[in-house]
């Protein structure tokens, strides 16, 4: 009965694993199984190698173990002689140790290769800014470098700076398809970890030091040709180029999900981020958009708008103007947030809000408004999300600094009598409309 029990347990575990593997989809938003880049692919290949090796060991050792349990079990009225009281066999031991070492070498050699490959940002001429970036002229020395993105972790959001391009965004990074991107990882407060599973495994952001990693969404031309079976790596033709462009368009251009992977305090679970992978043209357009920033809601120059705001704010009418007034005034948003273009919105304590209306999510990826059908923004949901975030930011992200910043947060706003006076529904409504218009 009891050996039956052991077997029963084995069957149950096997059955569970089959059910789980067969019944569930492995192509999910943050899957490490379906990879979209050479780093994650290398990591996945190594993982599968370890899976096959250990599966082999499992079958061999587990088989011997199960066999021994069944074969040598005590039977009723067992009249076999007492088992021999031997203490083992050195040759068997040494043999098994030898085999184990051999099996580990099978893992060790590709592991070493993988460590070296995934560690150093490769010198890939096709990824140098000069060879693909279609925007404004770059400094000479930058054209020989890949795109650099500085990732800075905060409790609980992400800043993405593009030093070569002079732009900063938050929580949703944009990167070109098929190009090496070099990331410099730093943290403002505690340790965070940058994890974009389909493109690359994680590297930590540690205060007081700069870590680096490289990511690449999709293969470059050369690696792709290798996978297509093109024998000569130098081969190039318009037809191949078109096929490659098609591969990037079909398989790589997408919206990728990432998340902080190192516990970083109260709202660690709500520190997500996104990466939008675009083609070279779209990337250049995005950079121009980010650099240009925003004008005033009614098309005035900022000087004129502020002249009116300072002297006669009543003259600025309409929901968007009202929203901007809350942004600059009662809401104190501009103390912590940058909106490119707006000469008085220069605070850097919070996420950069330039083009926040074009992002598919807010609150570091927690509140989403990307429609699943066509990847466009669901405006109704976007409005609701902005409203919710401003209205109850402490519920959406407990412990965050926008709510309580020691006298400066929107959960601590006071009126002229010193009474607590949170933003009114109308103010939040208009502020949400204004933020939605930043695109």
């Amino acid at each position, binding site marked *: *009965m*009891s050996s039956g*029990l*052991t077997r029963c*347990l*084995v069957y149950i*575990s096997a059955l569970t*694993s089959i059910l789980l593997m067969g019944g569930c989809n*492995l192509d*999910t938003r*943050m*899957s*490490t199984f379906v990879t979209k880049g050479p780093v994650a692919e290398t*990591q996945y290949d*190594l*993982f599968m*190698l*370890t899976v096959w090796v250990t599966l082999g060991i499992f079958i061999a*050792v*587990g088989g*011997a173990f199960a066999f*021994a*349990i069944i074969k*040598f*079990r005590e039977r009723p009225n*067992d009249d076999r002689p*007492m088992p021999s009281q*031997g*203490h*083992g066999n050195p040759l068997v*031991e040494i043999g*098994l140790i030898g085999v*184990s*070492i051999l099996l580990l070498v099978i*893992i*060790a050699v590709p*592991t070493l290769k*993988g*460590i070296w490959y995934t*560690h150093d940002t490769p010198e890939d001429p096709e990824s140098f800014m000069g060879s693909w970036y279609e925007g404004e002229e770059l400094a000479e020395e930058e054209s020989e470098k890949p795109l650099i993105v500085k990732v800075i972790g905060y409790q609980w959001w992400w800043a993405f700076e593009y030093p070569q391009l002079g732009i900063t965004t938050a929580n949703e990074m944009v990167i070109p398809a098929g190009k090496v991107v070099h990331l410099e*990882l730093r943290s403002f407060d*505690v*340790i965070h*970890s940058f994890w974009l*599973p389909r493109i690359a*495994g*994680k590297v930590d952001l*540690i205060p*007081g030091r700069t*870590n680096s990693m490289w990511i690449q969404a999709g293969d470059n031309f050369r690696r792709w040709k290798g996978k297509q079976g093109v024998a000569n790596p130098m081969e190039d033709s318009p037809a191949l180029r078109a096929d490659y462009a098609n591969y990037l368009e079909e398989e790589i251009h997408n919206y990728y*999900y990432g*998340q902080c*992977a190192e*516990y970083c*305090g*109260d*709202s*660690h*679970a709500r520190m997500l981020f996104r990466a939008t992978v675009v083609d070279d043209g779209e990337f250049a357009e995005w950079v121009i958009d980010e650099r240009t920033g925003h004008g005033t809601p009614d098309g005035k120059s900022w000087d004129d708008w502020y002249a009116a705001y300072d002297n006669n704010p009543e003259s600025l009418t309409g929901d968007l103007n009202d929203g901007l007034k809350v942004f600059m005034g009662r809401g104190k948003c501009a103390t912590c947030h940058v909106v490119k273009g707006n000469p008085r919105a220069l605070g850097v304590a919070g996420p950069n809000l330039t083009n926040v209306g074009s992002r598919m999510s807010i609150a570091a990826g927690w509140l989403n408004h990307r429609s699943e059908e066509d990847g466009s923004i669901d405006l109704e949901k976007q409005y609701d999300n902005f409203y919710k975030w401003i209205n109850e930011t402490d519920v959406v992200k407990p*412990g965050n600094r926008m709510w309580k910043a020691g006298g400066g947060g929107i959960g601590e706003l006071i009126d002229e009598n010193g009474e607590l006076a949170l933003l009114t529904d109308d103010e939040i409504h208009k502020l949400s409309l204004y933020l939605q218009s930043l695109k």
Partner: protein
Amino acid sequence: MSQTETEILTPSTIPSTETHVLKPERSQLGFMRPDHSRSVIMDWLTTVDHKKIGIMYGAIALFFLLVGGVEALIIRTQLAIPENDLISAQRYNQLFTMHGTTMIFLAIMPLNAAFFNFLVPLQIGARDVAFPRINSFSLWAFVAGAIVINFGWVLQALQVMGLFEAGGPTAGMTDLAPAMGWFGYAPLTGTNFTGAGTDFWIMGLQILGIASLSAAMNFVVTIVNMRAPGMKMMRMPVFTWMTLVVSLLIVFAFPAITIALGQLMFDRCFGTNFFVVAGGGQPILWQHLFWIFGHPEVYILVLPAMGIISEILPVFSKKPLFGYSIVVFSGAVIGFLGFAVWSHHMFTTGLGKVATAAFSLLTMAIAVPTGVKIFNWVGTLWGGRVRFSAPMIFSLGFVWMFMMGGFSGIMHSSAPADAQQQDSYFVIAHFHYVAIGGIFLAVVAGIYFWLPKMIGKMWKGKLSTWVAIFSTVGLNVTFFPMHFLGLLGMPRRTHTYLEGFGWETYNLVCTIGAYILAFGILLLVIDIIRCFRNGEPAGNDPWDARTLEWATTSPPQVYNFAKTPIIPARDALWEDKYGPENRKITHEDDHGHGIHMPSQSWMPFIAALGFIPVGLGMSLMQAGIPYMGYVAIFGLLVLGFGIALWAIEGPGGYHMHPEVDAA
């Protein structure tokens, strides 16, 4: 039952012909020693008997196992569905922090300590451990640490009931329970990120460290010095060997965490800058110090489990352990290599290529001695006669489940693959297969094996089979899907998650599994209670076992062996029962000297009690509560006072003359 005659040992009365039966004596301080007290409570508080201390370790550890289990169930319930708001983010973070801390330091380590205490002197034929009063001190220091570390829960409960409020002098009391993860990565442990809970955690862990260190040194000395004649090192039971290795690991590993915790305490209480970035400190230093302790700690937890399995498999296969010397040696190699793999917990921190490669290869290397043990366990069964008694069922389950945990460990050793697994649910799956599938099943096997020896009663009925079924099925249903969860991108330590990432089904299955596992543990508790209440007398050797502890009575007398045995061979009892004439156990003649028993003492208890005001006082002082520094100083005085009186009260001791040799 043996007739016992007791003789008090005083400087003036050696030897004495006078017969004293269980009569206490005055210590050199002039106080009555608490020996032979009729008060049960006083007897247990002051005991120096390794068996009673072991049983207390076991009972307290089982209590905390249930506490940690309830914490885990709340965690799993919260995660059953996406965007659940059963508990707040902060409460969740406190729960996983305390779940980890409780299970490691307050459940598994003391469970291991329970076995060390109860078994090691019996297995080596000794009367007690080398330093019985230090043993008592270790136990009570452990209890003090457990109280300090859990004090935040008490305050939090009072707060919920409205009996405690953070205001006025206690305004600084935020974050009452620790919430920075059981490995407390700096700078999250800094004063600007977490509150009082962190201080309770630091002080509690520091006290637990002192308890572990003093216990470990005691066992090293005991095993090296107190073996019965003929019990050569290579004749020792493997469990005793593993105790020795683990004790050495504790002696070498705990100083690292002691230093790290000391630095952290200085950072928090006195404004130093070891880990404060703004002051030029290095948060990464904490990780190195912590894991230099933390990885050996993993082996501190698992080697005793391996020792237990190496005792049980031979008994129920009727064969000696296959490759005894290689099993012992591989245990020592694991202990040694355990100090050289700490950075595999830090593959994603940017160690650089060479360090990553080195730690990757060393981590693979440690798989070899671990594999050797599994081969030898299979070899032990091979050609044996396998009986499926309860301890054996759990041991066989251990080998399967531990193997699974080992395989995911090999997967982690490949650093680039680990970049995807680190800090995801894959890691959670890995170490729970090791911790529950490995250590927990082994401990349960050990309980089923040795409890009849400890209490003298035999298990009743077959409930053990259901315990095995529910705990093994529950374990697999809970943790197998977590491999997939991790590889599908779910990070650990997240109090909730969004819909649409493909994690919903897995999480629900995991939660169901957790309840199945919990039911299995409930059955275990019921079975233990049934054994205590209804068990039939076990007899000295109910399993037809092989090692020396089964040669004495169940439960063993306070003096363990009426006469010191002389050990002619490994597997001493087996040889005594079935071996040739020249391998029978013989006994030393004590020439009427009797057995020298240690006196009981209040002092270890009093000294350890001092840790509570030290721990709480330091923590509350950091929170800004007035006069708490004086409380800490008072605690130190109590500690010093206890140790001083302990030193001058004199060792005492008395002689016993068991007339009938129970063995």
